[in-house]
């Protein structure tokens, strides 16, 4: 069915706005509207873009200047639908940006009954999100307006896109007057004590990630089961008296059984180290804005650890997380699917590699397709080069029942064999995955194999 092009209130469809580049910006149709203005689909010299056009209340010189600065600075990465050009006409203005490509959907879709993030997707989405914030914070800016509406996810690939970037501004300053979205704002903003800054970004980001993983809101639980959410209650819930739904010392605000069941379901699915990070930000981090909130690097560690500890259930093939906390408590890892024969049973866990860099330790589950990355071996991981592959799990071509880790670096690795002899693993050679391999020396790191 061909829908009639939608007409907005600010620009007329078919209207051609002259641009500085000399090519007209032709308005095609209204894509959406919000409190700040309207977004149109436009055609500039054959290229389709989105044009956000501000209403009278929003279009200020400060906003225009800020937009021009953002454009001048350029997009921090391809995860942002960054402003491309300011377009002006008759004292009004707006800016162009890319159109959200097909396949991307609002992150809010995780709240629909059919879409949820798997462990791998959750880790991938959150890592991109955290890394995007890192790139903004590294420029001395903060995002300020974190909410579900600004994040788009390709639920097939796990790729993300962040839009509405015009609210990005220097630490502690708000250009558009936007101070955030209710429920995502840090308590100190709700209480009127602070303007948005990198610290409040850390809180908002945690709320967004909590929603992505656990579906419900981290502060809105049983306490509010019988409240009308009027401003007084909203302020209490998010600002003056916030209480984490999974607070370990106070269970009075747990997600409502049945009604907010998803939060219970998904909380139980995640390993302790993920829950610990969220518990920190929503307990200590509610009041101690300076030291209580996990930093971006902490979140990167958490979600990389999640990625590194996934393995397929030997019974059903679905992803299971190797949670050392559970393992220490129960001496086993089980499949979480109630329909699997491995449910509640001790699963055969793949070999693990325990890597030590200085005094930092990490355990990586070695699956048949596991890659080792530079960041796992480096003392001070370089963000840009951290994703470089330095090793990969391979099968021994002479004996397919045996596995090893191929050295993808230019250095020679070493290990001590069963007989006590030090052996070399030169580039492109494979270190055998065997319990008798000791004292692995990756040059920048040492390691042990656990089978």
């Amino acid at each position, binding site marked *: 069915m061909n829908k009639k092009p939608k007409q907005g209130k600010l620009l007329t469809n078919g*209207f051609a706005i002259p641009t500085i580049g000399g090519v007209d910006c032709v308005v095609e149709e209204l894509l959406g509207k919000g409190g700040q203005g309207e977004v149109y689909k436009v055609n500039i010299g054959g290229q389709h873009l989105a044009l956000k056009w501000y209403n009278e209340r929003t279009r200020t010189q400060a906003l225009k200047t800020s937009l021009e600065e953002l454009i001048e600075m350029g997009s921090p990465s391809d995860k942002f639908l960054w402003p491309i050009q300011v377009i002006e006409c008759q004292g009004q203005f707006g800016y162009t940006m890319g159109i959200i490509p097909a396949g991307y959907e609002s992150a809010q879709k995780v709240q629909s*009954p059919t879409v949820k993030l798997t462990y791998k997707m959750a880790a991938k989405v959150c890592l991109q999100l955290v890394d995007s914030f890192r790139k903004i914070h590294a420029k001395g800016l903060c995002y300020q307006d974190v909410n579900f509406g600004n994040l788009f996810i390709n639920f097939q690939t796990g790729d993300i896109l962040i839009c509405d970037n015009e609210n990005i501004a220097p630490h502690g300053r708000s250009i558009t007057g936007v101070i955030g979205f209710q429920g995502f704002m840090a308590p100190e903003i709700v209480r009127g004590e602070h303007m948005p800054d990198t610290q409040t970004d850390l809180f908002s980001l945690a709320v967004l990630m909590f929603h992505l993983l656990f579906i419900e809101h981290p502060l809105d639980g049983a306490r509010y089961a019988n409240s009308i959410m009027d401003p007084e209650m909203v302020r209490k819930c998010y600002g003056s008296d916030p209480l984490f739904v999974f607070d370990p010392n106070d269970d009075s605000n747990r997600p409502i059984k049945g009604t907010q069941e998803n939060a219970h379901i998904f909380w139980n699915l995640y390993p302790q180290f993920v829950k610990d990070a969220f518990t920190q930000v929503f307990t200590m981090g509610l009041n101690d804005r300076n030291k209580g909130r996990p930093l971006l690097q902490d979140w990167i560690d958490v979600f990389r650890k999640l990625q590194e500890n996934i393995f397929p259930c030997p019974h059903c093939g679905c992803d299971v997380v190797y949670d050392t906390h559970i393992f220490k408590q129960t001496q086993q890892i089980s499949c979480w699917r109630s329909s699997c024969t491995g449910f509640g049973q001790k699963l055969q866990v793949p070999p693990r590699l325990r890597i030590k860099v200085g005094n930092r330790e990490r355990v990586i589950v070695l699956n048949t397709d596991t890659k080792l990355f530079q960041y796992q071996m480096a003392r001070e991981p370089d963000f840009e080069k951290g994703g470089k592959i330095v090793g990969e799990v391979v099968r021994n071509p002479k004996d397919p029942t045996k596995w090893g880790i191929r050295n993808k670096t230019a250095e020679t690795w070493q290990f001590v064999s069963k007989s006590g002899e030090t052996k070399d693993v030169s580039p492109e050679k494979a270190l055998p995955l065997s319990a008798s391999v000791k004292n692995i020396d990756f040059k920048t790191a040492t390691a042990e194999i656990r089978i």
Partner: protein
Amino acid sequence: MDNNDFVNETGAVEVSKRILRLYWLVDVSASMSGKKIGEVNYAITEVIPDLQDEAAKNYTVQMNVRAMKFGKGAAWHTSETKIENFEWTYVDADAPRTDTGAALALMAEELTEENLGAGRGLPPVIILMSDGEATDDYESGIQKLLAQKWGRKAIRIAIAIGADADTEQLLKFCSNPKECPPIEATNARKLVDSITWASVAVSQSVSQAKVGNSEDNIIPLPPMPQETIALGAETTEDEDDDVF
């Protein structure tokens, strides 16, 4: 394992949404007949797709709407319906009276705790549209409405249609009389704009749980749209400026 399998296996349930109820209270006294009631019908028809678009994007709030007409007494025009299923049937205006008091009393009956439960809802939005002075006991209607918890917490917006509307009376209905006194819709375009604003923008503010900076318990209302002419519009005679 693909996403569907994963979702099925987790046992994930549908998110339980908070309900946002939007009520349209339409004056159908004879003085509304003709252009005014036509514009009200038109505005509501036009605003439904916008509300449906908003609803489709919101997985945490369920918007339900219900319409009432009042003239000689008051009666529900529709049942409470999810916005995605809502269809508007035109109302006619031929009543010999303007029983606004009866409308408010009927609204109060709707908003009892027995009817709506104790909570986990959002403040309802009630839009009262009238072009005249109440012909019955307006005061007692207001008292009944405010006696209900949901009635007190409701965002109550009045639209005064045309020059003869009793704005002083309507002012008593408004939940935020200072910042949002009765909207004076003195022409057709203003009427459509104000119905759209009160329905879409106000309910957006409620569902996003906006709070003001002050400590009071008033939901800050988004500013009314200014009358603007879209850039690039053909400048024709403005036919919308007739006082009616």
